[in-house]
């Protein structure tokens, strides 16, 4: 099971791969759309890659609730298989 820091850095890697954003920019309090300028199409890819990396299922209905990076990290942490 990955801890919060491992999930955050794993997520930062995925975001970097998808958008080219510096991983250091990906912090718990950052909003995906407002701060990181990630659109819904990129978000889909990030979610699918996170599912694979952390062995979780993130339902499409849940994605709209993941406003900040912290929301995503917490969801992944609480739902790891």
């Amino acid at each position, binding site marked *: 099971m990955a801890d919060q820091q491992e999930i955050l850095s794993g997520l930062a890697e995925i975001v970097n*791969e*998808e*958008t*080219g954003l510096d991983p250091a920019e990906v912090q718990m309090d950052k909003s995906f759309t407002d701060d990181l300028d990630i659109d819904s*199409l*990129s978000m*889909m*890819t990030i979610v*699918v890659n996170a*599912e694979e990396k952390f062995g979780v299922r993130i339902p499409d209905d849940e994605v709209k609730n993941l406003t900040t990076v912290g929301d995503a990290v917490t969801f992944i942490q609480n739902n790891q298989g």
Partner: protein
Amino acid sequence: MSERRVVVTGLGATTPLGGTIAETWEGILAGRSGAKPLDQEMLDRYELPVHFACTIAQDPSEVLTKVQIRRMDPSAQYAVIASLAAMEDAGSPEVDPERLGVAIGTGIGGVWTLLDQWDNLREKGVRRVFPLAVPMLMPNTSAGNVSLLLGARAGAHTTVSACASGAESMGTGYDMIRGGRADMVVAGGTECATHPICFAGFSQMQALSTRNDDPTAASRPYDTGRDGFVMGEGAAVMVLEEYEHAKARGARIYAEFASIGMSADAHHITAPEPEGAGASRAMREAVERAGLTAADIVHINAHATSTPVGDVAEANAIRRAFGDAVDGMPVSATKSMTGHLLGAAGALEGLLTVLAVHHRTAPAAINIDDLDPAIDLDVIRDEHRALPRGDIAALNNSFGFGGHNVALVIKSL
């Protein structure tokens, strides 16, 4: 409005001979072949009968970011590389975005994306299909991406007419400027069809050379030993500009894009009409529309793919269009070096025709050891040929499956 003339003010390309049009032109004049062995793993897996192709010389990651590469089909990557280079070559002009257009053709479109994502769907399910799959595989993906990057808002067009696509797209750009819809158009063609399905399909059609023991000698248009074309890939783009607009900004002008002639064979889906009636009509129309006669044309860059049937049909068509004026008219067959770039072929050859007129140098073909007696043309071999001084004009031919015939006339200025 007085008649609007169209000139060429920028050139850009990524080809089997180099990452720029300058390197490509040097390679052409040096008589280099762009043929390279195909990836061994791909060959083993699919047992392809053809073991080589003219793949691009440049790694796109030298120019594009990792994210751009992830989000664009290779065909669009090539188009973007060529378009940015062409705009830079034109002096990175400041143009009213609503007067700047894009016209980039392709024969096949995003075949790599289509099939990669089909594999993802079958092997991993719907959620593993990339959300950008559709905008990456659609044939207009290149025109769309280039328009987006350049902020070009006069229109973004895609002509799909097989191996005439690149030439026809440049004709679209020419028409946009002539008709007053734009002052500048980034126009050309792109292709990345070096996918196993394309090798398999063309092989089943017996269209590809299988000279596997000697790839650099495989593309041999007009030679008696020709046995099919060599697959190529890449992109070529020119900046077309309204003459007064170019003059007003002090642009360097390579040549005038004088006209386009087009026709359709309505004969067979793949075979050219053997007497060349349709192709010759396109050539005659192009010459007439340029306000010229056959005697004014001093050079032809032929389509000349190196297929046994196509080369003879084209030679017949040239003879039919020009009559005796073709005697002593030097004919280049540059696919002997670049391979056949399909939807980018007409664009690359359009650029090479511009350079031939600009530098007054007609390139020589390689690999013609024994000129087919059925080819009654002055084909340039061994040494490139100097073109006359004074006002000159040259013609570029492109033909495509489906019966498309496109001829362009380029004039010195």
